[in-house]
């Protein structure tokens, strides 16, 4: 069987497994989406949005869709991948399957932190109102996910509630030999004046060819505040396409901060739209790659209403034969006067074989707006390295110091100290910074 046939079979199997337990509208959404995907197939380089990034090699693999042998994962196996020293909610998924015993859930009339499946049972109205409403099923991989996904995280925060703890979501993959495809799906709903912070991590434990096709929908109400940190720290044998859709109401703020440290192929599609004025969107990312890894960031910010602000800060450090892509599109529609849209993409190429393709796209149809984009590609500053060396800092440490400093300002929006420490340490480790970086 080829992949398309396998997927068709797998879709049928899913249908019989669910056996009509889902709502009619969801069943229809699934089948509509699957038909669309079948018609479109996987994206190819012919598609403008996929010009620099080819899924070809990945989709040719012999994926195994047989049901997974449940893997014995203990709390201590996953502990290193969670933020330490912090009281938090935890949603743990092993090979795409929700693991209740390793998770720390929470729910009352103010909020719900659990799995999507649970959510569908316990809060069907909320799910019906929000599920599948933001994700663009005219993108074939989003359509595929919408058809096939039935596991993922669901976080709901009611009006005026500030969630007391960080929500940590960990997707662990334990496969080693067979190639696996994962369809994970998250839904985050913040009602007006709600607040939540989420840390989502994808982590392989073994060198298996895992391809995660993940979709996240985040609905951020009026005056709500949302922060979503994503860590993609897999083996370089893992691949991932993450499509995240954020909708923001008036006076809200939302941050998506992406840390991409490895992967055979990682594609992040980040889509922001505003439904009310004076909303503020932040997109930060730090990409640190080596080997033959490829990370492709595609962002699209749709300014359709006036007085909104978007800030994008994408930084990358590429070593060996790694490759980066940044494609940042900002649309300012006719009525979106007083829009502030900023975009910055700074890159360091550490080897003659690493590369970055960067493409800012501004489409502006309003006349009273402030939009800017900037892009730099460079090497480490020789003068600064010599300066540090003359102070006794060895070249290797000096380089690490400079890279760390370069990456540093993408960490500024992290306000939870434990999370910040965790992410700083990870960045430092990736950069092999063997320095005591905390202030004395």
């Amino acid at each position: 069987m080829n992949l398309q046939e396998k997927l068709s079979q797998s879709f049928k199997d899913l249908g019989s497994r669910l056996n009509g337990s889902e709502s009619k509208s969801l069943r229809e959404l699934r089948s509509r989406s699957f038909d669309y995907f079948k018609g479109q197939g996987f994206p190819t380089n012919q598609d403008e949005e996929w010009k620099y990034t080819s899924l070809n090699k990945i989709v040719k693999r012999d994926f195994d869709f047989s049901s997974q042998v449940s893997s014995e994962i203990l709390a201590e196996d996953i502990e290193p991948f969670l933020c330490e020293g912090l009281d938090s909610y935890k949603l743990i998924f092993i090979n795409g399957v929700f693991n209740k015993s390793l998770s720390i859930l929470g729910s009352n009339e103010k909020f719900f932190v659990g799995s999507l499946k649970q959510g569908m049972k316990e809060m069907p109205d909320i799910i019906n109102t929000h599920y599948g409403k933001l994700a663009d099923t005219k993108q074939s991989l989003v359509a595929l996910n919408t058809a096939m996904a039935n596991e993922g995280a669901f976080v709901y925060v009611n009006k005026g509630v500030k969630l007391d703890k960080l929500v940590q979501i960990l997707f662990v993959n334990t496969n080693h030999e067979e190639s696996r495809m994962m369809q994970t799906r998250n839904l985050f709903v913040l009602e007006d004046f709600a607040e939540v912070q989420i840390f989502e991590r994808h982590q392989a434990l073994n060198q298996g060819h895992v391809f995660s096709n993940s979709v996240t929908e985040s609905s951020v109400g009026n005056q709500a505040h949302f922060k979503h940190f994503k860590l993609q720290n897999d083996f370089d044998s893992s691949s991932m396409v993450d499509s995240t859709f954020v909708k923001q109401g008036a006076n809200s703020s939302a941050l998506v901060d992406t840390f991409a440290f490895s992967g055979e192929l990682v594609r992040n599609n980040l889509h922001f739209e505003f439904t009310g004025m004076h909303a503020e969107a932040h997109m930060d990312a730090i990409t640190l790659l080596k080997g033959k890894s490829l990370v492709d960031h595609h962002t699209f910010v749709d300014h359709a209403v006036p007085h909104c602000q978007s800030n994008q800060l994408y930084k990358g450090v590429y070593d060996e034969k790694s490759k980066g892509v940044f494609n940042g599109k900002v649309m300012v529609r006719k009525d979106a006067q007083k829009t502030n849209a900023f975009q910055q993409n700074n890159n360091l190429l550490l080897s003659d074989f690493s590369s970055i393709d960067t493409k800012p796209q501004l489409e502006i149809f309003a006349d009273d707006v402030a939009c800017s984009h900037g892009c730099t590609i460079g090497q480490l500053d020789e003068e600064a390295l010599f300066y540090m060396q003359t102070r006794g800092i060895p070249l290797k440490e000096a380089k690490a110091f400079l890279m760390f400093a370069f990456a540093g300002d993408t960490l500024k929006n992290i306000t939870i100290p434990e999370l910040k420490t965790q992410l700083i340490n990870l960045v430092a480790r990736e950069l092999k910074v063997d320095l005591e970086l905390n202030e004395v």
Partner: protein
Amino acid sequence: MLKIKDLSVEIEGNKILKGLNLEMNKGEVHAIMGPNGAGKSTLSAVIAGREEYEVTGGTIEFEEKDIMDMAPEERAHLGIFLSFQYPVEIPGVSVTNFIKTAINESRKATDLDPMPAKDLLKKMRDKQELLEMDKTFMSRSINEGFSGGEKKRNEIFQMAMLDPKLAILDETDSGLDIDALRIVANGVNKLKNDNNAVMIITHYQRLLDHIVPDFVHVLFDGKIVKTGDKNLALRLEDQGYDWIKQEQKV
């Protein structure tokens, strides 16, 4: 302490130093003066270990050790310090972090444990005071947005923190107003003792009013062509370099 013999240096095929000789002992202050393009900054960069320069001949010894094949950081660990004419801005690295790393790397190289945070803090406070620096300095990124005077003071602050045996001050006076000049000079004088040495590279006499040199050397066309005491600097200030050029022609 420092012995430079017959040093010849090129950059991209241009001969800059052409057989330079210089000897410095502990407790001495030497001023190197000379017209633009004479090779003053090249000399300081080569002593500090800058790689772009090609040494085509001669030797540099520091405390009886040949340092020619040493990396800049190894030279720093021996106690050589270069204050830059144009200190480099390093966004994202705070002065505190930087100096702490520098000190502890030097200590590591000499098998010492890291300096306890308390001692480090105290030393930083003392040296900050010596150089009349604002407290906020410490948390700012190195040299980023610093004024010319602040950058130079920061150089001398680092020197004070690192206690070098040989400090090379490359045009430390350029871009300083009178007050900053006084503060910087005062800082250097306080740090000066019988066990260290200072090389002052300058165009002008004015820094030498504050830091009195034991020797003044004139660097011209890649060589030291004249050596005298502080009066030589005064004569250069008064008469310029034309008379040196005349002498060289003869």
